[in-house]
């Protein structure tokens, strides 16, 4: 009992601090996001601003408001950035790890070289890569070293977009994606013979898909079409981000590869598995938990990305905009504090979407132990 009291007393200060400075402020931020702080310039920076409760108005404006088109592009950018950044870092990291796992000469040297970018901050990385990707310098002048004409690729400055879709179709696409996912769940449930799960997932999938192809096609968020797509200017940013983080995934994978018992690999060899088959059926499945934890770390970095883009393209360039940057612009330059807070909450939800399932699975594992 005395031990418990001591433990509690020791923990109390940090509990109180975390309670106030983390959860208290999250709560305050949530409250601000539901007010109109910043709508009226006279109240925005007043000594005691009068805040009025407006409910979800700020969120509605962000997703369907006329002037917040930039926020929607930034969300699209964020999704593409996260996808390519995670894919690139994991893929390149795995390749590097597999190459180093074969124990080439000077392995330690290469390991250091590959891991080194991670020691830099994103601001430094961003500044260096901005120089490298200049329209009339850096990478673009490389061919002139061999007497060829320079490239004219506008790495960070292009306004071109690919995979353009209409924002109005978002309800349709969302329903379609969720419906198909549920259909997959139903199929798995069918194979595992779980009748109850099969029934519910099949039912909800059916409802969603029917809705998508009937009402979903005519439900419009905006009164006019609004195209968004993958900004090619992001390619430069993704390059820099992958360069920075692939060393980290390499280190993780290398540790994982070294941790695979030799007996397993030898058993595979005895069974007559080719090298490719060994990787496909033995090594990669064993690396799955590492991939998951790498995805968590990379995922939350991607969702919170700010400094890299700040350093590479600046705050004002919409084609490389992400929600964190738009939040900074709205709140700290435009004094739209409530709307900025709303974006903050949305980002928190996104990060939670990545982190919470992971935490839950970890906790379950610990309980099982």
């Amino acid at each position, binding site marked *: 009992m005395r031990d418990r009291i001591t433990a509690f007393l020791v923990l109390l200060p940090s509990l109180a601090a975390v309670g106030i400075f983390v959860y208290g402020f999250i709560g305050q931020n949530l409250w601000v996001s539901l007010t109109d702080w910043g709508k009226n310039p006279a109240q925005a*920076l007043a*000594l005691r601003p009068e805040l009025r409760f407006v409910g979800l108005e700020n969120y509605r404006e962000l997703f369907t408001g006329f002037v917040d088109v930039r926020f929607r592009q930034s969300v699209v950018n964020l999704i593409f950035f996260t996808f390519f950044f995670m894919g690139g870092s994991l893929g390149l990291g795995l390749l590097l790890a597999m190459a180093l796992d074969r124990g080439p000469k000077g392995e330690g040297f290469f390991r250091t070289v590959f891991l080194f970018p991670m020691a830099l901050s994103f601001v430094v990385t961003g500044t260096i890569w901005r120089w490298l990707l200049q329209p009339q310098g850096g990478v673009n002048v490389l061919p002139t070293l061999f007497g060829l004409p320079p490239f004219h690729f506008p790495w960070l400055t292009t306004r071109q977009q690919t995979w353009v879709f209409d924002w109005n179709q978002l309800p349709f696409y969302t329903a379609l994606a969720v419906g198909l996912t549920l259909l997959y769940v139903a199929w798995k449930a069918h194979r595992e013979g779980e009748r109850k799960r099969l029934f519910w997932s099949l039912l909800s999938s059916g409802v969603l898909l029917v809705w998508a192809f009937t009402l979903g096609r005519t439900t419009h968020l905006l009164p006019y079409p609004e195209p968004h797509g993958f900004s090619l200017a992001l390619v430069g940013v993704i390059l820099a981000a992958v360069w920075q983080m692939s060393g980290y995934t390499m280190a993780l994978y290398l540790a994982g590869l070294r941790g695979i018992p030799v007996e397993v690999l030898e058993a595979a060899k005895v069974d007559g598995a080719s090298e490719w088959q060994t990787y496909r059926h033995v090594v990669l499945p064993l690396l799955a938990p590492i991939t998951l934890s790498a995805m968590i770390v990379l995922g939350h970095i991607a969702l919170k990305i700010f400094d890299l883009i700040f350093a590479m393209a600046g705050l004002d360039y919409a084609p490389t905009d992400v929600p964190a940057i738009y939040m900074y612009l709205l709140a700290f330059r435009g004094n739209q504090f409530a709307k900025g807070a709303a974006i903050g909450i949305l980002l928190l939800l996104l990060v939670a979407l990545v982190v919470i399932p992971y935490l839950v699975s970890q906790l379950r594992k610990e309980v099982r132990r």
Partner: protein
Amino acid sequence: MRKWLLAIGVALGLSALAQTGKLEIFSWWAGDEGPALEALIRLYKQKYPGVEVINATVTGGAGVNAKAVLKTRMLGGDPPDTFQVHAGQELIGTWVVAERMEDLTSLFRQEGWLQAFPKGLIDLLSYKGGIWSVPVNIHRSNVMWYIPAKLKEWGVAPPKTWAEFLATCQTLKRKGLEAPLALGENWTQQHLWESVALATLGADGWANLWSGKLKFTDPKAVAVWETFGKVLDCANKDAAGLSWQQAVDRVVQGQAAFNIMGDWAAGYMSTTLKLKPGTDFAWVPSPGTSGIFMMLSDSFGLPKGAKNRQNALNWLKLVGSKEGQDAFNPLKGSIAARLDSDPAKYNAYGQSAMKDWKTNRIVGSLVHGAVAPESFMSQFGTVMEIFLQSKNPQAAANAAQAIANQVGLGR
């Protein structure tokens, strides 16, 4: 006896207070602009040797970082004694409407500044019967820069209207110049826009736009975007990757014929690039705006609750004085806001700008904070993006009007 001691003590304390104390000056003047501020501070220290001056500079072009820091400090109840701010709506729309600033009208009367500064400037500094900051310098926004020798080589003259500009642009393109107009990152594009808008709307139309009398959706205002779109076709496609200096470099190196930039470009070319104003490089008002001086000004204000109010007032007096302005501006590359400053201290560009400052019609710049509050300016970037992405003048005009309504422009 004790009374005597007390009296002496109080007297000593008071005199010490009058001479000492601190003064914290908050600004974003570092690097190239640092020496100009230092010159002012040196002058202040000569006059008030007992005061400890704290130079609280937050670096970052146009104050992007400084403004964020300032907001944190003001909201946290720790205002600096005086801070730099773009004169006009950037101050008024943010801090004056929030009742965070002291009215400086009496200081203006006492120092005779109502006569020393032109009326057009005083109008931009005023709101609801008060005058809210002391301007230390004037920059001009609507200037077109070129290299005379290059224009001669190409056989063209600096155009006087935008129609002429577009014709000249075609001529230059035929002569193999890919992008006759050099353009830089986002804010320099807005800077170009305000020159086009001023020419299209005229000085009165421009002023009406900001007082809310002229709607952005008015056909006249939509026409601004149409012309702007045509002008953009004459500019380089990699604009977003260039700083304003790099855009000026393109003109200097002959890769482009013209650049529209504020007159800090003159400082860059004469000080950094060592070019001679008037011969190595030259300037005209941006097309269609001759006789109009689109100004922006750095100024200092007095926040309510400043800890060293008297020292700050002394600083403001120095900032607005002839002596202070003539010490500051030749180093900063700007001109004095006062009408009576000494032309001999300035270079050829400064002298020509001073002449225009005294005779031209004065209007305020949008991008540099004179005519619209921050809440509008920061979202104007979005309007620009809508236009650059869609190339649709009506869409941009609608968005601009929507934001104007939202922030209550002109109210």
